[in-house]
């Protein structure tokens, strides 16, 4: 009887203690007193034009490794690459001795609504790449995620001077396999112009709803996980930082969106190997640099069947595919990024570099 009473008292005490910590941490987070700092690895702005910027993170020592240019998607904040101390792709690269550059596309407004895909492929990305090359003294390898990967791939298909290496992470290629996000516009139910707002851009709320549609219970599951881990301050901060980022979309420039739907989704042009941008055909066979196509086997946004064909479309003699046990964002953050993506990508970059034998 005493044992049973003791266990009951212990359970009540533990539960009360856990819920007190949950309440305290919850109030701190909601009240903004203990929100995780994001994007806080020290950096300097190297280049800026309109909304776009280029940030540089220094490794702090000359390891002889090539610089790396990170290209984020257009629809989210770039700090996903540098989410939190201890959970940052940038930090992982710096720890391995890479000099890191990150493009920040900024927040598109009415003035950016006329930006086409060509604006990013032929103007902003080449300008940022040139600025990074000047600053580092050698051309950087390019790592690009999601739609940033589409931009980087089309850029590499355009330029004669190839980057030392191109790593595409979760890049939508076969849009017939993109699920409901593409089906709703592919089959003519919606024209891309139908989702533009008064500023001429796709509003962030529309982007958010579209992604929520992919996993209807995803948000609810996230909040349940947050509640379950709320007693643990560090875990709660990690979940909060990722949830906050995932809900913080930026407007998608209207002209680029219309072009993306018409060319990439309806015509499935990337999958044909040739994309017409700004009246110039961009052939993926023109990509001759070492190429790594990385996808997450649990990716809901850009499913493996959509991403994996990219390797076979580029012209590089050294084109590889890497499947990792991760989701779309898990390629860049969390345990899967630390344990799988970072080691695999940096090992591949080292292999490519030693294969080149030129140190570029």
């Amino acid at each position, binding site marked *: 009887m005493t044992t049973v009473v003791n*266990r009951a008292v212990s*359970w009540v005490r533990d539960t009360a203690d856990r819920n007190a910590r949950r309440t305290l941490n919850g109030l701190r987070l909601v009240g903004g007193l203990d929100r995780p700092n994001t994007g806080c690895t020290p950096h300097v702005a190297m280049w800026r034009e309109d909304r776009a910027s280029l940030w540089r993170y220094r490794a702090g020592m000359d390891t002889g490794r090539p610089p790396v240019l990170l290209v984020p998607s257009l629809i989210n904040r770039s700090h996903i690459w540098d989410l939190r101390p201890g959970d940052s792709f940038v930090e992982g690269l710096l720890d391995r001795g890479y000099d890191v550059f990150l493009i920040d596309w900024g927040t598109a407004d009415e003035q950016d609504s006329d930006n086409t895909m060509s604006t990013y492929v032929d103007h902003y990305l080449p300008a940022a790449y040139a600025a990074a090359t000047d600053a580092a003294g050698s051309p950087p390898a390019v790592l690009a995620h999601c739609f940033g990967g589409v931009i980087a791939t089309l850029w590499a298909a355009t330029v004669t001077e190839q980057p030392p290496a191109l790593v595409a992470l979760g890049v939508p290629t076969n849009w017939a396999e993109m*699920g*409901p996000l593409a089906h709703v516009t592919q089959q003519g*139910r919606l024209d891309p112009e139908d989702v533009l707002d008064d500023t001429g851009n796709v509003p962030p709320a529309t982007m958010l709803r579209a992604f929520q*549609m992919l996993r*209807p219970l995803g948000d609810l599951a996230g909040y*349940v996980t947050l509640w379950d881990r709320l007693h643990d301050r560090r875990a709660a901060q990690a979940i909060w930082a990722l949830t906050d980022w995932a809900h913080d979309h930026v407007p998608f420039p209207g002209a680029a969106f219309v072009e993306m739907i018409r060319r990439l989704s309806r015509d499935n042009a990337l999958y044909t190997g040739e994309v017409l941008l700004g009246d110039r055909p961009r052939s993926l066979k023109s990509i001759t640099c070492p190429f790594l196509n990385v996808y997450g086997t649990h990716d809901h946004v850009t499913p493996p069947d959509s991403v994996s064909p990219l390797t076979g479309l580029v012209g590089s003699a050294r084109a590889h595919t890497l499947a990792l046990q991760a989701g779309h964002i898990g390629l860049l953050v969390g345990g899967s990024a630390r344990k799988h993506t970072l080691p695999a990508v940096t090992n591949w970059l080292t292999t490519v570099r030693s294969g080149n034998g030129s140190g570029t």
Partner: protein
Amino acid sequence: MADLPALPTDWKQVFFAVESRLSPRLERLVRTDAFLDTLAVANGVSRLVRRSAGNLGNGIVEALGLPSSRQVRQLQRSVDALNRGRNES
């Protein structure tokens, strides 16, 4: 009483058990033609309502002789175009 320590996580286990069964069905549902048709119609209706309400609001404000958001936006576009032209030249 012997099961007491397991209680706090039970509801979560129940939630994720339900979620793992329900999610695939919902994910299949959002891929159906019926759902996508409904989505397209809802989007069209909400655009129509928003545009009508905006036009009505702008009309009232303009009738009162005040600058409407439509006019401010047009003015802003003209200023942006002028600035772009000046930067390009």
